[in-house]
């Protein structure tokens, strides 16, 4: 399947899913190209997980066309499953087994698995290979989840909020891992509510809110398109902080220079970050 000259690993059109009266996914279109890292961004309850679960073949849909690696995930065969790697949001692994036993066992499910030792090295668990899973830290368990997600050598890896609960160092390590997998040619779909994560990893991203895609594109492109203007901040003579949104920050600063003789206390000119754009797009601007 190709669109605009790209071969699509995931092609979603008009996807809808309802839980009772609540519409979780309200007509989503997505096109994920082979080999790219695609970020699905949105606040909690925006419909990210539901969308990913439908792509995994783990949840039915009410309407829409979905093609994942050329098949409808609702009718995924074993051969199809062997080409898709999944890292769920909340996982648990057999506590009494060791890392090596578990990774080796999962490798047996696949027709052409990766080498278990190599995969444990890839996720940085070679030193814990002989440890029982119950003895692993939270971050180590998450890396085991990824190891089990990639052990089959998937063409497409679906990661649902993989770094929630990580400390900053663990998150950076995790990003390295995702980049490595991407360099090897794996197509990756990643949901997250961390802006910096999407910006650091994703070639393209879609922002979803209330079950709909509200923006889509490259991270820098999104900022340019939706992040117009700037915010000028300063402190008044009576000590009150002021902030002004403007499309002409230079003029605002020039006016301030005339009013303040000399230094303008607390002067800051801020271009909107991707986070500002995101909060505006998802209607959470007041959170700032």
């Amino acid at each position, binding site marked *: 399947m190709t669109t605009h000259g790209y071969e699509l690993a995931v092609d979603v059109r008009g996807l809808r899913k309802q*839980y009772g009266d609540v519409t979780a996914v309200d007509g989503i279109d997505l096109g994920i190209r082979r080999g790219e890292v695609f970020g699905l961004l949105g606040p909690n309850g925006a419909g990210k997980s539901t969308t990913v679960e439908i792509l*995994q073949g*783990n*949840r039915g849909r009410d309407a829409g066309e979905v093609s994942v*690696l*050329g*098949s409808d995930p609702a009718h995924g*065969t*074993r*051969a*199809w*499953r*062997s*080409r*898709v790697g*999944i890292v*769920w949001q*909340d*996982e*648990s*692994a*057999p506590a*009494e*087994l060791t890392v090596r*036993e578990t990774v080796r*066992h*999962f490798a*047996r*499910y*696949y*027709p*052409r698995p990766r080498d278990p030792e190599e995969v444990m090295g890839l996720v940085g668990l070679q030193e814990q290979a002989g440890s*029982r899973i119950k003895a692993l830290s939270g971050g180590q368990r998450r890396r085991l989840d990824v190891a*089990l997600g990639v052990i*089959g050598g998937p063409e497409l890896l679906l990661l649902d909020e993989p770094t929630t609960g990580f400390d900053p160092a663990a998150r950076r390590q995790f990003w390295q891992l995702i980049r490595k997998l991407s360099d090897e040619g794996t197509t990756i779909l990643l949901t997250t509510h961390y802006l910096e994560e999407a910006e650091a990893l994703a070639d393209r991203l879609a922002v979803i809110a209330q079950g709909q895609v509200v923006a889509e594109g490259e991270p820098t492109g999104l900022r340019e398109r939706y992040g117009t203007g700037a915010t000028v901040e300063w402190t008044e003579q009576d000590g009150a902080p002021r902030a002004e949104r403007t499309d002409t920050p230079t003029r605002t600063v020039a006016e301030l220079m005339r009013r303040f003789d000399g230094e303008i206390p607390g002067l800051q000119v801020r271009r909107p970050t991707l986070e500002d754009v995101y909060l505006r797009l998802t209607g959470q601007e007041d959170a700032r």
Partner: protein
Amino acid sequence: MTTTAVRKARGEVAVRLPGAWGLGLQHGALEIKQFFRQRDQVVFTFAFPVVFLFLFASIFSDDVQGAGITASQLYVPAMMAAGIMSTSFQSLGISIAIERDEKVLRRLRGTPMPPASYFLGKIWLVLVTGLLETAILLLVGTTLYDVDLPSDVGRWFDFAWIFVLGLTACALLGIAISSVPKSGKSATSVVVLPFLVLQFISGVYIAIDTIPDWMLNIGALFPLKWMCQGLRGVFLPESAQVLEQAGSWEFGRAALVLGAWCVGGLVLCLLTFRWKNRRDG
């Protein structure tokens, strides 16, 4: 390991997916490893029926009038049957409900694992633990409570099919009931209550000739009564048949009921098994 050839969705390349039988064996080996690594679970699983046998057979040890046996002897086959049911029905019913709750099943479902290999793995675990449990009870029964091992081959053959059919039927019912509890936390109560009731009305705790007929008739609808009765036929002298509801061991009928439960249990599993929790839709 057997392999299945499958044509890859994109064409040209044919992928060989690992077969269910071989994976089932591997899964079984891991299940057994996990089971024996949980020491407290191992001790309590095996000790439970032994402790009950010790309590009942020691408290009630008088001769049973006109049957040529002691009450203690009656409790040995009864506890063996209950032991088979606890290692299959109870342990699978609870452990699968917990695995479902902890999303172990969902993760397996996301791999190309053939579903049959998961069930085969469970069957291997149940077979090993069930055999061990039975052997321990038999050892206690023969050394402490005057139960004699059967001397003719026919009785051992009866023992073999009662064990296999009973274990299979109870294992399948255990898999089926695992879908009933809403969460892993409630699994124990949901599974243990019917098991306890069945033990009372099938002649495990209470001698068969003191249970009201209508209760026995309800018990007779389920496998446990026939496992108890069959095992009494294997390990007790012919004179004890007078205690039975029908006045005989009824091996044929026991085979029929247990066989029917194997088929019915399988159908029930196929119709009701869920890989996900109800909350997960």
